[in-house]
């Protein structure tokens, strides 16, 4: 059913002996990863070959125009057979892409640009294509997806969320149908059987989380017997178990690869079950009560990375206060564990910033995507503490069944490739962790995005006023305005300000995610103001009416610099897409997280003394912010490499637990 010959032709891939086709976990010494990151910085001389590939594809275009539909299909099938033998060589790709390009023109009415051809080629070479925002990544991916699927490989197009998976799949269905490829979409609340059907399709659109969860489910279900052992068991007349959900890890085309491979990869993905809580609920209430009564710097200390711990004095205080509680409170270890967790719950996590309350449940909001992460819970006890703090019903403890890091999971694909608009900052890390090289794809048309300069405010209140004022100013010229906020709380605060002044606006955040498609569809209207969290970042395509292009296109206001410059660039990338005009600006406050957490105290003081009220800045602020974001990125990068190193050490140390439990 599946055929991976094309993926393996001409490449050296070590296959695992697991139940289905996947690559053996790469064993990388730390020095090897470091060496690879250095190599990633070397330039790649591919220009002439790329040009020859383009010429070859374009030369075939004339011929494909006259083919009838069936000839297109049979020719593509013939190309696929050739790829089985030769792999994804330039010659094969040129022929195959020319056919798919023609098919796309006929079905979608969109002909792939040259840069999209380049991107498609880059993908099938197993690299990361960096295309500027709004260059049509979705369409470029179809080239690679169709070519790979035609050869029979299970093609997974990985998106960052269900919304994008559904949207992209729907958008490209006519093309796939035309080529006779079956397309499946996996969404969050699908049954296992439906998922199996979706994965059985030639091309499957799926979000990274669903994909990884399904993989883990398979791993738990199938245990650690090898493919041969399973076959033998079946052969011997043993009852064949449930077939696996996935067909195997053949090729993954990751959209927004930096988000999936870097940002989300900082924590391992955990599949867990809920157990009844065997702890007395009063423990939570007492701990929260106690934590609220403790004083900062007397009983506990905290640093600006949300790390909170008890001071020696605090430990003594806690011991005295809890003396008559009895039970587990008598154990110093448990007592301090409870209070630590409670302190984190009270001081480290804020409602509407780190989580929201929905249906009387605590739901975690992912900061970089702005979306709710259902079924995710914080580690042992912390989630319950937060539920207790919010007065929700305390859910049971979660017991981990299996976990995997993205580094490990995606590393198992026979062919891994991806696209993103923002890869520059993380190129080295991607190379180090996944052995993926970044290829920069030139823009199709020169960008018409202009930055209008930034405004720094002395306080958060001033900032919101300035944001509101600027939004109204621009909207009154007939242009749509997109205001990006960092948290649900901030978006609602701004919405309230607009509401109080009677200004019409739309809000898009984790709480209002049902109306996402509608809000995005309308965001391009004249004079329209849309307040959105980072949900309106990656992949969101705001279509502009023709008259708006005359008025100057979409205007994007950034209200707070994110720790990652990539997230900011993604938000700015919502305007001036595919040669449209557009403007951006940042209106920020000096007490924003980025400044308080990552700026050294002296610089913070200088900035505070410079900024009184509002302060317009052309370049200096941006440079400062770039530097801070660099620092922040480095901080998180270190965290990620630590996690990865620990994961590797742990896998080595726990060699005795068998493969599937790791």
């Amino acid at each position, binding site marked *: 059913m599946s055929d991976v010959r094309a993926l393996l032709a001409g490449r050296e891939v070590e296959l695992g002996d697991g139940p289905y086709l996947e690559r053996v976990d790469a064993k990388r010494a730390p020095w090897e990863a470091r060496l690879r990151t250095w190599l990633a910085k070397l330039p790649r001389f591919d220009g002439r070959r790329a040009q020859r590939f383009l010429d070859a594809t374009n030369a075939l275009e004339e011929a494909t125009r006259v083919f009838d539909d069936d000839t297109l299909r049979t020719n593509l099938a013939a190309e696929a057979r050739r790829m089985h033998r030769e792999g994804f060589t330039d010659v094969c790709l040129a022929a195959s892409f020319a056919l798919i390009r023609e098919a796309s023109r006929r079905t979608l009415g969109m002909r792939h640009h040259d840069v999209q051809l380049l991107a498609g080629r880059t993908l099938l070479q197993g690299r990361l294509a960096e295309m500027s925002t709004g260059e049509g990544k979705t369409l470029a991916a179809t080239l690679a997806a169709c070519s790979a699927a035609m050869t029979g490989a299970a093609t997974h197009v990985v998106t960052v969320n269900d919304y994008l998976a559904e949207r992209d799949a729907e958008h490209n269905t006519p093309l796939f149908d035309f080529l006779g490829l079956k397309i499946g979409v996996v969404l969050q609340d699908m049954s296992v059987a439906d998922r199996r059907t979706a994965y059985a399709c030639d091309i499957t659109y799926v979000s990274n989380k669903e994909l990884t969860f399904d993989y883990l489910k398979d791993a738990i279900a199938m245990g650690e017997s090898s493919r041969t052992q399973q076959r033998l068991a079946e052969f011997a007349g043993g009852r064949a178990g449930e077939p696996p959900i996935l067909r195997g890890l053949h090729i993954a085309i990751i959209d927004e690869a930096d988000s999936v491979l870097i940002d989300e990869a900082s924590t391992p993905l955990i599949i867990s079950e809920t157990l009844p809580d065997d702890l007395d609920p009063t423990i939570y209430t007492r701990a929260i009560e106690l934590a609220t009564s403790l004083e900062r710097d007397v009983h506990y200390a905290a*640093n600006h990375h949300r*790390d909170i711990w008890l001071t020696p004095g605090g430990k003594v205080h806690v011991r005295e206060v809890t003396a008559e509680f009895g039970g587990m409170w008598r154990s110093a270890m448990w007592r301090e564990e409870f209070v630590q967790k409670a302190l984190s719950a009270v001081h480290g996590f804020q409602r509407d910033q780190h989580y929201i309350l929905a249906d009387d449940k605590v739901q975690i909001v992912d900061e970089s995507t702005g979306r709710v992460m259902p079924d995710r819970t914080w580690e042992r006890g912390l989630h319950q503490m937060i539920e207790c703090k919010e007065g929700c019903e305390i859910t049971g403890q979660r017991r981990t069944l299996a976990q995997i890091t993205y580094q490990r999971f995606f590393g198992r694909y026979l062919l891994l490739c991806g696209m993103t608009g923002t890869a520059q900052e993380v190129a080295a890390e991607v190379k180090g962790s996944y052995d993926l090289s970044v290829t920069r794809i030139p823009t199709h048309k020169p960008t018409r995005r202009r930055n209008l300069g930034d405004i720094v405010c002395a306080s958060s209140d001033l900032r919101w006023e300035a944001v509101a004022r600027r939004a109204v100013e621009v909207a009154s010229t007939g242009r749509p305005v997109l205001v990006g906020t960092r948290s649900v709380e901030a978006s609602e605060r701004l919405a309230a300000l607009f509401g109080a002044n009677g200004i019409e606006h739309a809000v898009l955040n984790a709480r209002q995610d049902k109306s996402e498609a509608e809000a995005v569809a309308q965001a391009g209207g004249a004079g329209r103001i849309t307040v959105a969290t980072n949900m309106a970042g990656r992949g969101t395509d705001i279509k502009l009416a023709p008259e708006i292009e005359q008025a100057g296109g979409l205007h994007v206001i950034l209200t707070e610099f994110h720790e990652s410059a990539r997230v900011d660039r993604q938000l700015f990338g919502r305007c001036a897409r595919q040669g449209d005009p557009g403007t951006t600006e940042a209106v920020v406050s000096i007490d924003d997280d980025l400044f308080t957490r990552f700026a050294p105290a002296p610089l913070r003081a200088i900035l505070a003394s410079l900024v009184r009220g509002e302060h317009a800045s052309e370049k200096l602020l941006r440079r400062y912010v770039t530097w801070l974001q660099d620092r922040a990125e480095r901080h998180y990068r270190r965290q990620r490499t630590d996690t990865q190193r620990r994961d590797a050490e742990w896998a080595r140390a*726990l060699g*005795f637990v068998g493969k599937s439990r790791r």
Partner: protein
Amino acid sequence: MARSPFSPSWHSVASLRPRLTPYARIQRVVFRGRPWYVVQDQTGGRVYRLSAAAYAFLAGMDGNATVQSLWEQANTSELRDACTQPEIVDLLSQLHGADLLQTDAVPDSAASLERHNKKRSEMIRQWLMNPMSLKFPLVNPDRFLTVLSPYFAWCFGPIGAVLWALAVIPALFLAGVHWTDLTHNLSDRVLSSSNLLVMACVYPVVKLLHELGHGFAAKRWGGAVRELGLMFLIFAPVPYVEASSSAAFPSKYRRATVAAAGMLVELFLAAIALHVWLLAEPGVMRGVAFNVMVICGVSTLVVNGNPLLRYDGYYILSDLIEIPNLAQRGQAWWTYLIDRYAFGSMDATRPDETPSEQRWLTVYTPLAWCYRTFVTVSVIFVVAGKFFFVGTMMALWSAYGLIGAPIRKGWKHLSTAGALHRVRTRAMRRTFAFIGGLLVLLLFVPVPLHTRALGVVWLPEQAMLHAGGNGFFVRWLATPGAHVNAGQPLYVLDNAQLRAEHEVDRAKVAQAQARYDAEQFIDPTKAAISGRQLDEARETLARIETRMANLTGFAGEDGRLVVATAQDMPGRYYKKGELLGYVLQDRQLIVRAVVQQDDIDLVHARLSGVGLRLADSLGVAWTTRVIRAFPGGVDELPTAALGLNAGGTIATHPNDSKGVKTIQRVFIVDLALPRDSQPVFGERVQIRFDHGYEPMALQAIRRLRQVFLSHFGV
């Protein structure tokens, strides 16, 4: 890190059903009053120490109970904190790492293979890291030892002890009695080429007996010895045995005996050899005996017996004080001390050590480090002096092991240690401040720079009576010991040849005079010539007369005439310039200092003061000044008293019987004697030349350069 009840990897182990491998043996051992359990892998001989809590957990592992249920069982008390999840995960992975764990999971053969490869590459890495001690396991001597051990068991009992004492104790006395014979010219005797050959033959035998001592001792009490191999210590092959199974012996004295057995054997051999050496006639037998003594004595005293190096002495010490893994625990303890007190980390886990253990660890670790550094540096110098290229490579290698690796480790600790998680910035800052401070101190803070030299109380030139010419001594004109005045004649020499020449010359003058007188009025032209001849003859005569006059000596100044052996002198022949006696005057003594060539540049170029101490009153320091410094170097000491043989510090040529020929050139500097000092002529003087101030690093670099120049010629 504070103890945390949860482990993120718990789900991986919770459903496992582990048990110990059948070949693991557990033994209860009491260390410092606390019970521990020693788990031993009988095949590999390696040993792991477990706490009582860990043992309680381990005892339940029967291959049927899951880790989860065992954990719950261990924590049945209401507090539930007997053992935490991380502790159990650690315990299991440690047992797995030691190949002592069996589980119901299908073993991952790829992972095992990788582990095997890693172990091997680790070994190679260890060789590379430590080229001065390579280990090659060769055979498994267990069967051989088991067969023979009954015949040797008595050695490690009362009979053996008595026998040993009977041999060794008298030998100690005898060695004391014959100490000078034994040690006279030791280095020459040991390092002579013929002896080296004998030593090369004796050495492996002695060391093999040493190792068999360990092996039989371990066997005596049921331990297993499964590895015998060759170790290359500074490229010299030494056998070794793996006797760590003794760690499971419950009695600390037995453990210590196993560790000490090698040295006991060597001392016994040395004692026997001493008796042989005393009884035998000079010959091969005696040479062998001598070498046995040297090898056993030196290796026991310097290397094996020293607890600061990781050889037998270390194991004996750690067995006797009941602190196994002294070195590792010392390191952990010091890491904790630094994390906690230098960096103020509250998360640093306090190693579980009792106060008395803490005292041991606090003291032992730095001492051992200093000693190891010292030994390594000395070894490098010795080896590098002999083989320059190999030596330098080895020096660099060892320097990495001694300095580079700890720095790397320290940096890794500083940048990744969990204990410093919350105080990392502070820890970094303090470390860099400390290093910076140290560098400033070394590079910029000037400290007094001085050089030391040795001198003698000496006489000024004019106080010495030198023979004015060659001649036989006739007599003293003044009584030796009496007071003489300046200008007073003191002695007379007689030179017959000179006298004869004088006669001849006088005759020649008379002849020339006569000729001149004759021709003066007859032939003025001829007279002019003979006049010149007369002048010449007169001049020659005058020269001879001066030399004649020089045969009589006069006092240069007032003082007492001192002569060493006045009565022997008459009739003796003296060469010109030879010392006959002194005219001493209390005020006029000086100090003649001998400066080594390494220091002479400083003494010449930048001298800011001179201090001295006289040998008979070292408590009193005098300041003084340089009278004169001779620019050229000499290779003869003013007196043998400064030479190494006579108790001085300057190395002299061993072939020179007088002991004044120096090996290196030296420089003479004369210093004034302080007015109020009461020195005796010939007394030794300690001199300190001050050269102002200079930062320590510059001083060190100068010395190092000199050492390199003189040692290695680079």
